[in-house]
């Protein structure tokens, strides 16, 4: 399989989808002639022209709103918001318009649109350029949310997002843009809503998001040398979450560590732990839709459950390197949490 950088995998996905479907257009600040601040739209302007690849003013509300309107009217826009922190400036368009529109209009509209942005600390970019705000989006009904952790998923999830008839937030990670990894040649679409078991194990389940997937794999390696078998799950899609894969693993291990760069309170990790707790000791026999449906009741949970969250402290991301280093979770902290749940 060819090795491709994460950022190139994104540009490839966009180029392939634009070639495949002329309704796909790209909008954002510096995404056109300059090819994007991190290079994720490089070459598109030259290949598809300025009608379909548009440099915009610094007007996030107008850009996202225009994408919503264009989607309603038959296009399949892909918007870039330069850093996820800035999505706060257009949050009304995301939450009150994009997410609710189909529902409140009684299903009359489809919103096939994608908002790409990136999260993540680690570049000393400071408090307003380092946020991981995925929990905001996951909280809102009507949005799908993906967080690719590898070049293959950066490509495959973006292609699936563009083909989906719903608004999808694609949350890349700025520190992964330079990462190289194998990407299957030819058509490569990663279905939304399916987690990936990155490493099999039997003692403890680690669910990690985005850049923390790599840290979790390193932690699993470390604890393996101590005789602990850790299973590492990358949900890839946070909404809708692949509950089956996570619950099946926790049913086996009875120990769950979650790791992400977002803050702990009301984070995706808290949601995953709540899900596992709801299933603790659940009976093996399905109890029917009245009990909640889905996987609820369909699978036995573990009799006991030990959990830990590995997250940054509940502070903004500090600029200075020694402080940011303390702030950012890493493999060592994940390994420590694994040892704790092992007791």
């Amino acid at each position: 399989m060819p090795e491709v950088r994460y950022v190139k995998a994104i540009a490839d996905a966009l180029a392939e989808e634009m070639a495949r479907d002329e309704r796909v257009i790209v909008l954002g600040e510096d995404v056109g002639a300059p090819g994007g601040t991190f290079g994720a739209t490089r070459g598109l302007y030259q290949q598809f022209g300025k009608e379909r690849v548009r440099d915009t003013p610094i007007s996030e509300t107008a850009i996202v709103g225009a994408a919503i309107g264009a989607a309603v009217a038959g296009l399949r826009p892909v918007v870039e918001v330069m850093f996820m922190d800035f999505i706060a400036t257009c949050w009304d368009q995301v939450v009150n318009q994009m997410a609710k529109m189909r529902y409140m209009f009684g299903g009359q509209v489809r919103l096939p649109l994608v908002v790409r942005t990136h999260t993540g600390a680690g570049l000393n970019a400071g408090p307003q350029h380092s946020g991981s705000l995925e929990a905001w989006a996951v909280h809102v009904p009507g949005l799908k949310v993906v967080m690719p952790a590898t070049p293959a998923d950066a490509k495959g999830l973006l292609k699936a997002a563009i083909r989906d008839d719903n608004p999808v937030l694609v949350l890349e990670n700025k520190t992964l843009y330079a990462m190289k990894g194998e990407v299957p040649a030819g058509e490569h679409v990663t279905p939304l809503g399916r987690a990936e078991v990155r490493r099999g194990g039997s003692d403890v389940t680690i669910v990690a998001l985005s850049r923390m997937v790599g840290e979790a794999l390193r932690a699993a390696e470390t604890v393996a040398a101590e005789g602990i078998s850790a299973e590492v799950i990358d949900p890839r899609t946070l909404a809708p979450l692949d509950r089956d894969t996570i619950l099946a693993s926790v049913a086996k291990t009875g120990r769950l560590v979650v790791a992400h760069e977002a803050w702990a309170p009301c984070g995706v990790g808290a949601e995953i732990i709540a899900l596992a707790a709801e299933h603790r000791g659940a009976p093996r026999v399905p109890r029917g839709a009245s009990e909640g449906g889905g996987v609820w009741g369909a699978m036995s949970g573990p009799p006991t459950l030990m959990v830990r969250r590995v997250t940054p402290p509940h502070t903004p991301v500090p600029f200075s390197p020694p402080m940011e280093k303390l702030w950012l979770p890493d493999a060592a902290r994940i390994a420590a949490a694994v040892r704790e749940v092992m007791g």
Partner: protein
Amino acid sequence: MREPTRDQALRIYRTMHLIRRFEERVAECFAAAEIPGFIHLAVGQESVPATVCALLERDDLVGATHRGHGQVLAKGAEPRRVMAELFGRATGYCRGKGGSMHLCAMDLGVLGTNGVVGANLPIAVGTALAAQVRATRQVTVGFFGDGAANTGAAHEALNLAAVWDLPVVFVCENNLYAEFTPQAVHTKGTSIAARAAAYGMRGVQVDGNDVPALFDAAAEAVDAARSGAGPTLLEAMTYRWRGHHEGDPMAYRAKDELEAWRAKDAIPRFRAWLVERGMLAADEDERLVGAVAAEVDDATEFARRSPWPAPEAALEDVHA
């Protein structure tokens, strides 16, 4: 035409040199990996903050941008503590929490540089509101760029300031680019100041590299704000000589465009003006430039010698 006094003129001239020297040093330290993170330099644009801030009192306020080192220095911040902040050291104004894009000196009226384009303008409106309510006669200057002019935040801030007649001066440093995107691609028309009419405030476009012309326009705007006559939108046409951020290869602009703007450098132009009026003798100029260089050297050494913050300091100052 309002002319700067000799004191004001020399202060402006010195501040321009200070910003130029400081920014060039930051570029060197960034290239040498002494300064982490993202850095946006204002080389070429020094005249705008130097001139506008020369008109401000100590308790006046400045809302700065991501390209704000010069704005902060012009308001009187100590180069040592600015440089130390850029280095991420405990002795920096924000103790290493903020860095280049979050550089604040509240006791000098510096409301902070800002990493979110346009976001400083509503806040500038707020400090102007406080000044109006408390009848302090303080003026707030809100700096912004040609790119920032297209944010919703800028539009809302300008309208609110106008309708409440707030003591604020909106200073647009129009350097013709928003990141890598030229103004013609992000804005129809070439005058941001012309928008002022629609907001119901004074609007003036000036050559930002012409210090006396800029001084005249800024003095009128500051006086108007201070005397209760409301806000002004002052657009200073200028140009950045370096990349949008350090490391930007500047593929999007022609070399002769840069050369043409270098020829319009405000520093020698204003030096000629000073010399013509007998305000600056050759030996004085030499002394001033030497003193500025020494100050920047001192600031750099101070930053280098300064301790790193304790990692645990990351946990402080979330709440009062």
